[in-house]
């Protein structure tokens, strides 16, 4: 695709966002992102359907499955323009980005038939059931059990998942569970698709320090997954789970960077208004933030457009660590620029509210999706070929 075609696409998306993210959808601008994920849920679901009408859900899916078959450069353009316009956090993200590609790759025909259309239409929402209370960063330590019901062939699931994003707004969950008693680590796991609308499932919100509750604990007590809702074979759960994570190519982070840029701009505006621009260290920190954001963009472009060389793969390992710590530092910078009254809550000042929310939620950025500590282990071990951290013998 030529540069001209990409530019045309860019303008098409920009126009579409301008004409659609308006009117009743106006309040959604810049809402619903990480840290604000449970904001305005009904309106955001309507927005998902609006996107679907425009043909903008699942644009990277193959055309035969209802997508637009967008290339990586096209996806980059889409995410950038979506982010620049203030497009809200996507309730459909897990279905579109993770479940769909996984089913297209590994699902049965029947599974594709049943599930892809709801994702494409923006009418069925998914959430992710990996982490557990005893596991945290340690996915190998899954304890949720799936037992086969000999009569129906269905799977009965018991256990608890935590840090399940937007479970309370979702219809379906995919669950990694242990289906072979006595197995440990990566063996004996099963990957199941389960309806959340059943009596054996209980969803409890986890209240965050920023006030929101977009994460949940999900309790299963003999909840049922239908026999035909196993992805892959029982026992292959780990492989499916890892493949699913691999579909997270991170292009959506380019949209995220647009939001970051707007946060940095708001900080600069405040500094100019309140005179903090006179403080040398504030000036320096703003310059460091600008630099980090620019580097982040180039790193993302390098990785996403990457030639798959060892060099690029090695640099890619650090991407999550870089953006999450950058964002966390930006939160602190925002508070320091706001000054002594940074902590005063003021409903009449949405710009300040947004930065306060960002300050608090960005503390989770370095924890969810692989903590800083896990990231550094990964970079050292996979990128630098340093020795693996030994596993202990407890649990």
């Amino acid at each position, binding site marked *: 695709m030529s540069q001209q075609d990409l530019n045309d696409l860019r303008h098409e998306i920009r126009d579409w966002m301008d004409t659609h993210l308006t009117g009743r959808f106006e309040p959604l601008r810049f809402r619903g992102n990480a840290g604000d994920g449970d904001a305005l849920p009904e309106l955001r679901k309507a927005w998902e359907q609006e996107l679907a009408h425009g043909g903008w859900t699942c644009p990277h899916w193959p055309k035969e499955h209802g997508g637009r078959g967008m290339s990586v450069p096209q996806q980059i353009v889409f995410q950038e323009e979506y982010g620049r316009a203030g497009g809200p956090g996507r309730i459909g993200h897990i279905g579109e980005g993770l479940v769909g590609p996984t089913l297209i790759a590994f699902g049965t025909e029947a599974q594709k038939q049943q599930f892809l259309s709801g994702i494409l239409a923006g009418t069925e929402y998914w959430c992710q059931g990996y*982490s557990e209370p*005893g596991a*945290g*960063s*340690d996915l190998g*330590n899954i304890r949720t059990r799936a037992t086969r019901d000999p009569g129906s062939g269905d799977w009965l699931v018991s256990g608890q998942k*935590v*840090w399940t994003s937007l479970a309370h707004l979702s219809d379906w969950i995919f669950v990694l569970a242990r289906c072979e008693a006595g197995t440990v680590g990566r063996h004996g796991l099963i990957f199941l698709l389960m309806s959340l609308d059943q009596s054996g499932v209980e969803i409890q919100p*986890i*209240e*965050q*320090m*920023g006030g929101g509750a977009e994460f949940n604990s999900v309790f299963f007590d003999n909840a049922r997954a239908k026999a035909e809702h196993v992805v892959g074979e029982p026992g292959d759960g780990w492989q499916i789970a890892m493949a699913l994570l691999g579909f997270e190519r991170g292009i959506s982070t380019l949209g995220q960077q647009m939001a970051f840029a707007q946060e940095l701009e708001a900080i600069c505006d405040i500094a100019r208004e309140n005179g903090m621009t006179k*403080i*040398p*260290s504030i000036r320096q920190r703003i310059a460091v933030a600008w630099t980090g954001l620019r580097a982040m963009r180039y790193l993302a472009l390098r990785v996403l457009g990457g030639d798959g060389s060892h060099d690029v793969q090695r640099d890619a390992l650090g991407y999550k660590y870089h953006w999450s710590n950058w964002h966390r530092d930006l939160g*602190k910078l925002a*508070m*320091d620029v706001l*000054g*002594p*009254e*940074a*902590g*005063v*809550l003021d409903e009449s000042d949405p710009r300040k509210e947004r930065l*306060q929310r960002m*300050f*608090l*939620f960005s*503390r*989770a950025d*370095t*924890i*969810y999706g692989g*903590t*800083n*500590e896990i990231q*550094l282990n990964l970079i050292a071990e996979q990128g630098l070929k340093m020795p693996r*951290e030994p*596993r*202990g*013998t*407890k*649990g």
Partner: protein
Amino acid sequence: MDLTLTEDQIFIRDEARRLLASKADGDALRRIVSRGDGIDPDLWATISTELGWCAMTIPEKHGGVGLGLTELVLLMEAVGERLAPVPLWSTACLGVPLLTAIGTQAAQVWLERIAVGDAAATVAIADMNSVNPFQGGGVTATRQGGGYILQGQLPLVTDAQVAGLILVPARIGQDVAVFGLEPSTGSDFRRLKTLDHTRQYCAHSLNDLSVPESTRLDRNGVNADALAEAETIANLGLAAEQAGLARGAMDLTLEYISERVQFGRTIASFQAIKHRCAALEVDLAELRALILGAAVQPDPRERMLEVAGARALASDLAFRASEEAIQLHGGVGFTTEYAPHLYFKRAQANWHLLGSPERHLDRIAAHCLPDGDAA
């Protein structure tokens, strides 16, 4: 210079820590947070009335106990360690030193009341980011009739709704005057909702507020050296509170990571985690030594500089220790169910009180580089 604590001092510290460990534990803190006004009145009654902590640094002739700054910093550390929601800093580190600096009969009456726990106090500072909080910047007083007209914005005043005395430093020409407002004499402080749930913050607009002559506590302005001394104590107390906060955040983290198992090992067994905790520990030892040294430093100018350094270290360390508390708690670290977020929010709130680290370091730089152009 002897930095060894006396037996009495160790006793005071240990008793304070013991009291707060039981009265300001996690459950108590959660209760106060859910009530939302940043004050535990029962605990404050115990501290101020029964135990007489506010009397500690008030001279005996003013009804106090007449102990020194070392005792004060030990108490403030204990308060910081538990985020105890009491107006001790406002009263003992803002109010008492300023009243002592004023030194008039009118001020003494208030010191006597504070000593017996009859009133909490605070100082209304117009610019909370100032390293010279007691100089009356931002508030002007004009004589009118038999009283004064006060004018100024007070966007952030600690503990004003619980204080029986709100001291307002104000400028009259070149002089610093201090007015003592009481809840009954026209002070109408609005309580603010803030991210930090463990201290009370209020605001007030002094729009040509008319106050009687009797509210003016000083005579012909407060002595500049005495004011500077009082400011040093305000900052010293806050540095001690921040050191305590850092210790508290570290202790709860160490407890959590010593239990929590990941990859078959306690989190505390990972060397990268050990080294990060150890680096905080070194910084805390450095900060505490500086605070204890400044408390016994006889020279007021040297003490001012040392306290400036302590504030710079303390603001930084308290923030780092509490951000590590969140990080090392992992997923639960950013929930309201666990305590790290309370330390973290308080650490950021303290960061700008009486001057950000950079402002304090500027003072030291001006001392080290007397001929250099300040930037």
